[in-house]
């Protein structure tokens, strides 16, 4: 198991290290800045931090030595004249499109094992970008950008639509599946040259009933893929939990999940796609733990049953929510960590049975990653 965790927070990149006296914050980088996404690339150990500077926009930094030294590299840039659709919020007389300008890097994922130095980035608004040189240069995946359905995407969680999930198939690096809020689930089998909109069975309660199953309107909060059985995928969706066993083509809604099926984060067990973890909140309109008791839910049978895991988690007056990138699982599947909206970090080394609080005083946490 790993003895190091990275947390991207509202006020910097925090490194948490396990020493002889337990876990503690060992390093703070980019103090004072939003770290919207981070990545430790398991292929070469390079570390990446995506920043949202209040005055100066979105930046990307990288480190080849585990964060001792950082250098700023390039960020994705939209082509001149690129626009996004106005979504359902355009007022009469206002333009139906808006200029596309980088707001945030919302997903940063390594390419396949056979694609060294490749990075995929999902952005707000709605762009998928590829770098083949560790972020020195970026190219927009135009075949997706040019799909007419993209102009119908709209913001979910943020005012503009964004790509938050990128799953590179471990069997075939050309096969990539992405999740868009709000724009559904899309798949390419040729490294982005062509795209298909998937998601049969997903359901959006935030649309009128006749439009609830429109694939292009779905709000997956996070899409994850089982490493050893990649056709098994999970979605923590705005309207619940969905499970696919055919590579995101069709989805089954998992109902009657106690205490709730609402949430943002999901992790899947690397060795068994039937096993997954979630951190529920009450519902869309009440984003706090049910009964103010923090729990992690776990299924081991593809969603037929769930356990509520709460040993070591606060069970009274707890109002922490875990954002979509706020939970991670290691390669063994036993070590799990999550960070919360109010700066708490908890770790389990037995698959979620027992949890230990590492800190409750960090800034708001956007993303966590267990170091490899």
């Amino acid at each position: 198991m790993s003895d190091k965790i990275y947390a991207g927070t509202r006020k910097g990149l925090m490194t948490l290290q396990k020493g002889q006296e337990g876990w503690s914050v060992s390093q703070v980088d980019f103090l004072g800045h939003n770290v919207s996404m981070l990545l430790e690339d398991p292929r070469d150990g390079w570390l990446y931090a995506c920043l949202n500077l209040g005055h100066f926009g979105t930046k990307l930094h990288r480190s080849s030595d585990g964060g001792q030294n950082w250098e700023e590299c390039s960020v994705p840039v939209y082509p001149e004249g690129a626009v996004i659709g106005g979504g359902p919020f355009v007022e009469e007389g206002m333009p139906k499109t808006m200029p596309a300008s980088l707001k945030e890097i919302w997903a940063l994922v390594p390419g396949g094992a056979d694609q060294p130095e490749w990075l995929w980035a999902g952005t707000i608004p709605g762009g998928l970008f590829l770098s083949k040189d560790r972020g020195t240069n970026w190219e927009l995946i135009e075949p997706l950008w040019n799909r007419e359905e993209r102009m119908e995407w709209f913001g979910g969680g943020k005012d503009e639509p964004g790509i938050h999930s990128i799953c590179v198939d471990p069997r075939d690096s050309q096969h990539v599946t992405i999740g868009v809020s709000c724009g559904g689930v899309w798949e390419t089998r040729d490294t982005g040259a062509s795209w298909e909109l998937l998601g049969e069975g997903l359901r959006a309660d935030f649309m009128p009933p006749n439009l609830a199953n429109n694939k292009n309107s779905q709000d997956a909060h996070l899409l994850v893929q089982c490493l050893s059985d990649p056709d098994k995928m999970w979605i923590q969706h705005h309207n619940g939990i969905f499970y696919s066993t055919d590579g995101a083509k069709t989805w089954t809604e998992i109902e009657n999940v106690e205490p709730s099926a609402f949430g943002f984060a999901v992790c899947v067990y690397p060795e068994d796609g039937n096993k997954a973890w979630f951190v529920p909140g009450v519902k869309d309109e009440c984003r706090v733990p049910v009964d103010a008791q923090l729990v992690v839910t776990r299924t081991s049978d593809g969603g037929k049953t769930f356990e509520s895991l709460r040993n070591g988690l606060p069970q009274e007056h707890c109002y922490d929510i875990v954002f979509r990138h706020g939970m991670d699982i290691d390669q063994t599947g036993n070590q799990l960590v999550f960070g919360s909206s109010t700066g708490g970090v908890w770790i389990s080394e037995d698959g979620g049975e027992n949890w230990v609080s590492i800190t409750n005083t960090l800034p708001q946490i956007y993303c966590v990653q267990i170091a490899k």
Partner: protein
Amino acid sequence: MDGNCLREALENVFEKNPKLRGYVLDDQQRLRHHVVIFIDDQVIQDRVKQTDSLQADSEVYIMQALSGG
């Protein structure tokens, strides 16, 4: 909802439930930023004055758009 246009229909509803107004419209009587209205599965055009026309059998959905995290 009774009315020839959306705003008229909304006013009829607000008359019966005055407190609802402030949840749907802002203080300038525009549709709230994170509220969306569909008429017969189409998003309305006029978020400022809600002048979109209604048919006698139109179905109107007032939805909370997605926001926050």
